């Protein structure tokens, strides 16, 4: 019965799989810790949250270590599992970012009141699940893996958005679920057509590119729109941003900080890969001007909608939601520069964005944790009562706007230089519009970002302000995040050295 079976082929496949497993240490460690955390929660009831936090931190430190080793051993892009995944510089750099975000999330969750938390082990396991999804998302070169990794991120997110026992949290969860599930279902329908046109699931192969090029244009366009819709949903670009403010307002703050960084940057990483700048200078995407125009218009809309809507927000978390939409527009602009410099600036920006967002959400969470207030008007006089907190708010908001002396300025400067350089090269008007919109929206963002420090220092007085005290842990972590923003401005070469090593093979 098995006479005609090709055992050499089977052997080769087995060797490929085993060899690939050995190279996937960070991902394996994440998967192990998901199981470990759930098991500990099952076996030892009433384990305090700090134990879970410490285990998670250990796990994430291990993940970062193995990511580092993965990066050191990497000499050229390697295909794993028969072209399911691809290990290269871009992936490794983004994995650093996700690992650090995970650690920051654990720290942010540290101070949360115990009473809000019934399923502590699951909480951290789900954070690890989200990270695993993001890790796979930036490595994938296969349509099946795109869908699986996006769903892993999404399903973890739906549950995490629900995590506190509050009415708002439940509403945020169901809104995220309905929008997210629809977006990924539509994306899957688009992916099925991509597969149909090309007959292969490997989107880096010549067969795939050839297949899409020789297929009739209109269906390819529609299918590609569907696929990009799924990705733009993750990036929270207009017109797929409606869920963002509601989810950010309702979900627990540490999770919001995680949502605003990891799925978004993972989506961008995948978009970079799909648009094929980072990979083999793909022919199809980078030269089809129409995608630059379509995505360019979306990026402009994203910046405009995000920044102008933020002006009217009264809730600090909602304001940050719109601000993160605005930042997405600039991220997209960085991709649309279609150059190595553009990608490097984008990565620099991504790292700085992670630090800024975690810092901002941490400050918001400190106030929320101790007083339960998230409205900007409640911050009256807080800067006079606790000047330390006020000063940190000022610095973080300046960084988010993109002004010196913070790394936010360097990041924006790099993105705009990349855009200008590309504009001089290709003279595409959309790039000029992107630069203009980016500059205008930076000015607009000044008004809403500085509203918080303004209210803190110039409205109300110290006696009537919220009564809260910061403990040492709060101060150290907040100071650390803000100092890193200042340091990266003065010593931006620390980060650029890491990113410069990206060669696109």
């Amino acid at each position: 019965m098995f006479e005609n079976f090709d055992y050499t082929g089977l052997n080769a496949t087995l060797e490929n799989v085993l060899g690939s497993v050995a190279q996937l240490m960070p991902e394996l460690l994440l998967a192990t810790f998901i199981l470990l955390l759930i098991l500990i929660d099952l076996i030892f009831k009433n384990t305090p949250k700090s134990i879970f936090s410490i285990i998670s931190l250990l796990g994430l430190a291990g993940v970062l270590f193995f990511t580092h080793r993965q990066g050191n051993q990497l000499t050229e892009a390697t295909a794993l599992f028969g072209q399911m995944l691809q290990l290269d510089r871009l992936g490794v750099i983004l994995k650093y970012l996700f690992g650090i975000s995970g650690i920051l999330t654990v720290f942010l969750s540290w101070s949360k009141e115990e009473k809000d938390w019934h399923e502590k082990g699951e909480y951290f396991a789900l954070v690890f699940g989200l990270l695993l999804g993001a890790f796979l998302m930036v490595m994938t070169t296969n349509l099946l893996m795109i869908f699986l990794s996006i769903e892993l991120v999404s399903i973890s997110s739906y549950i995490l958005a629900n995590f506190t026992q509050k009415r708002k949290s439940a509403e945020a969860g169901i809104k995220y679920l309905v929008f997210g599930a629809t977006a990924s279902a539509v994306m899957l329908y688009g992916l099925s057509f991509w597969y149909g046109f090309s007959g292969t699931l490997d989107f880096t192969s010549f067969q795939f590119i050839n297949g899409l090029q020789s297929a009739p244009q209109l269906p390819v366009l529609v299918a590609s729109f569907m696929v990009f819709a799924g990705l733009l949903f993750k990036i929270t670009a207009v017109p797929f941003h409606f869920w963002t403010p509601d989810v950010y307002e309702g979900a627990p703050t540490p999770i919001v900080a995680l949502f605003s960084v990891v799925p978004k940057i993972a989506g961008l990483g995948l978009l970079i890969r799909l648009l094929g700048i980072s990979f083999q200078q793909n022919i199809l995407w980078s030269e089809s001007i129409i995608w630059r125009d379509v995505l360019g218009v979306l990026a402009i809309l994203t910046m405009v909608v995000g920044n102008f809507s933020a002006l009217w927000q009264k809730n600090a978390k909602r304001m940050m939601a719109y601000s993160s939409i605005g930042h997405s527009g600039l991220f997209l602009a960085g991709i649309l520069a279609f150059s190595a410099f553009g990608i490097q600036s984008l990565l620099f920006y991504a790292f700085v964005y992670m630090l800024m967002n975690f810092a901002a959400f941490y400050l918001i969470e400190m106030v929320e944790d101790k007083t339960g207030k998230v409205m900007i008007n409640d911050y009256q006089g807080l800067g006079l009562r606790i000047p330390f907190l006020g000063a940190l708010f000022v610095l973080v908001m300046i960084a988010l706007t993109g002004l010196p002396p913070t790394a936010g300025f360097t990041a924006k400067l790099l993105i705009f230089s990349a855009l200008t350089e590309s504009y001089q090269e290709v003279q595409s008007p959309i790039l000029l519009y992107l630069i203009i919109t980016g500059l205008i929206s930076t000015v607009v963002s000044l008004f809403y970002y500085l509203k918080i420090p303004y209210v803190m220092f110039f409205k109300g007085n110290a006696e009537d302000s919220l009564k809260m005290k910061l403990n040492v842990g709060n101060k150290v972590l907040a100071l650390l995040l803000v100092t890193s923003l200042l340091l990266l401005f003065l010593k931006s070469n620390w980060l650029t050295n890491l990113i410069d090593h990206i060669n696109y093979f």
Partner: protein
Amino acid sequence: MIPLEHFLILGAILFSIGIAVIVSRKNAIVVLMGIELILNAANINLVAFSQYDPNMLQGQLFAIFVIVLAAAESAVGLAIILRVYHYFKTTSLDRVSELKG
């Protein structure tokens, strides 16, 4: 053999019904059903296209993964709907709208 177009048309019909359900129905459970319809439309496409794949199996394998994921997603979805029902005493998406700004 049934020509490919028939499968694609069936898939497109399912997709359209799914989108129509999601857009027009207010009940969260029915919306989840609409999402399921879209996933199945994609499955039909994948299996149909898989006939023309030189490796034959990729599309069908993809479809199996999608079926498993759809089950996971509806499990999570129904759990979330239960929680919403616990707080709001309704599953109508129109009436679950307290977050505004």
